[in-house]
């Protein structure tokens, strides 16, 4: 029931999916070199997105690490049952969810840049690029960045406490690993680092939003060539 017996449908499907999934970056080659303030902003934007690319690739690798840890866990559990001896490694279980945490916390910025989060493109699809840039710029600056500021403040407080800062805001030692929050389980991993990662995640998130604001600004001053805006052919698949 295939059309051509020799054709490789899986590969074809993969190409279609890739075409649908890949975010299209517009205006990567600048028409004229940026000068003055624009040059500085452009450099800041590029610097931020370099970090984004690195953490984005890292989260891809972490997906496989999470799998490796999960598989290790299953195997040790079965072996433990088989030889009826307790070799379940609590640390690995903790490491597993912490790695998953790292996967998406370090990927927040990548998600923002690649627009993996959905928009309702009911009207959006028909807006002009300038209208889109205005909507994003205004809402990013007036509401989202303040939110991220609040988020940074509260998560920093949370992380600092977990890293051993005392309630009267003193740091007892710079060697935080001696005083950071331990696990409530006997063989669990310390909670300090993952709580710090919550803060780091929001730092990355906020930095990429700054880059998005700069890019929207470029679109509005007519330098779309510098903006490298992401657009999708399709809604990103979410299942």
């Amino acid at each position, binding site marked *: 029931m295939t059309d051509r017996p020799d054709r490789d449908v899986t590969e074809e499907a993969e190409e279609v999916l890739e075409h649908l999934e890949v975010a299209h970056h517009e205006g990567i080659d600048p028409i004229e070199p940026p000068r003055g303030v624009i040059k500085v902003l452009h450099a800041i934007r590029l610097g931020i997105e370099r970090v984004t690319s690195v953490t984005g690739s890292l989260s*891809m690798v972490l997906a496989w690490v999470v799998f490796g840890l999960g598989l290790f866990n299953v195997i040790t559990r079965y072996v433990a049952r088989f030889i009826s001896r307790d070799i379940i490694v609590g640390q690995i279980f903790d490491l597993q969810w912490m790695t998953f945490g790292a996967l998406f916390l370090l990927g927040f910025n990548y998600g923002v840049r690649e627009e993996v989060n959905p928009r309702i493109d009911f009207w959006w699809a028909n*807006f002009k690029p300038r209208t889109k840039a205005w909507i994003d710029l205004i809402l990013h600056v007036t509401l*989202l960045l303040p939110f991220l500021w609040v988020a940074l403040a509260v998560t920093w407080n949370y992380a600092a406490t977990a890293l051993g800062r005392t309630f009267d805001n003193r740091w007892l030692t710079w060697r935080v690993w001696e005083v950071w929050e331990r696990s409530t389980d006997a063989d669990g991993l310390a909670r300090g680092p993952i709580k710090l990662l919550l803060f780091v995640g929001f730092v990355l998130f906020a930095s990429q939003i700054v880059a998005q604001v700069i890019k929207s600004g470029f679109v509005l001053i007519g330098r779309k060539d510098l903006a490298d805006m992401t657009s999708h052919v399709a809604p990103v698949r979410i299942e």
Partner: protein
Amino acid sequence: MDVGVFLSMVMFVVFIAMILIGYNVAFSFAATSLAFSFIGDMLGVFDPTRLSVLPNRWFGAVSDPNLLAIPFFVLMGAILERSGMAERLLTAIGMLMGPLKGGVAAAVIIVGTLLAAATGVVAATVIVMGLLSLPAMVRLGYDHKLATGVIVASGTLAQMLPPSLVLILLAQQMGVGILGLFAGALLPGLLMSGLYVLYAFGISYAKPGTGPAMPKSERSLTGGILALEVLFSVIPILLLIVAVLVSIFLGIATPSESGAVGVAGALLLAVGAYFTDKFLVARGATHITPKWRLTYKTLKEAGRSTANISILVMTLLFASTFFSYMFLILGGSDATANWLANIGGGKTGFVVVSMIAVFLLGINLEFLEITFIVVPIFVPAMDLLGFTNAEKIWFTVLMAVNLNMAFISPPVGFSLFYLQSVAPPEVKTADIHKGALPFMVLQGVALTILAFFPGIVQASFDIFTLAE
């Protein structure tokens, strides 16, 4: 009306307005919540020091063992979709059932069901079936509406049958166990699949010309090779499904650990496909060329989709956590819960109203948004009405069926979109949209049956929660 409650209602309206103009949904959650925490502070109904509990809630999401299942099942699906399995199943079962009227359509549904239980990936299933079966059905003279309808409907079953992202997220938001929800959704999912098969055969026999039988000249696979192909394609996937679901249902492994087993199984299956193909070719099969599937690119792409989907879901979850917290503190939750609980008709009234609401939202929104927007509103009302855990699972299954309709409801359903991207030119978009309608009716029928006979979900739950 209380100032806080009024504010929370305004907050909701502002949020809807913001997502309608196309601002990122996750950002809209965060932005409106921040704005209204500020306004609430000025009007003296919100104490900003309460914001310091947010990290604790976020950390709860990071360390939630149920959400940990997401990367495993996504990775498993991403590998399977590149393993060539869908292709083999479609060829084998299509050839097997082709001689019957409507047989190819039924084969598509059966393959869709098998893939659904193994992967939970809608897009890939719809696209592969669209590339492979749609041209074949068009050539055989199938009615275009029937041909497209079976593809979108059965591809979308991936969301209904465990393991699926929809069920994992619904379980997390509803506060029911993943195991229980998976068990409760299994029979209802099979019920839907059964209704689709009945419809495909029914209409093909009732209306001549909608689903003709495959002529002899089309049957390129026969006899021993066909039998082997059926065995080689069906047995591994059945083993994989059984391994994953049984290890969850027996309580041997947590859902995430079963996911790990599933990923390992998917890798094995992709490797095994190469050797069975070689074996078949050695036996004289000409319809395939053996191909090594586990390339570096495949592994990289699989990691990429896993990261993308995890980031997407968790960003939304973080933002909606803030939103539902504000909604709670301002008093909106209590107010809507009271309103929903006193809507008349008790539990029945609530179920009817909420199902209508979800259906209406489903016309324009996708399942993720619906899950994160309405479930936090429903849960307090359900607690107020005294829903037991079993009733919560039943309600969640109803919601899953309802969300299934959102996937294929024209004009914005995801599945329709995927099929459009690969449909041959003679299949019109209008046909794809019209083709989905009878299947939406069937989903509606399934929803009604399950609503009137909660025993089906209960039975499914009782049969498959083998642990107790």
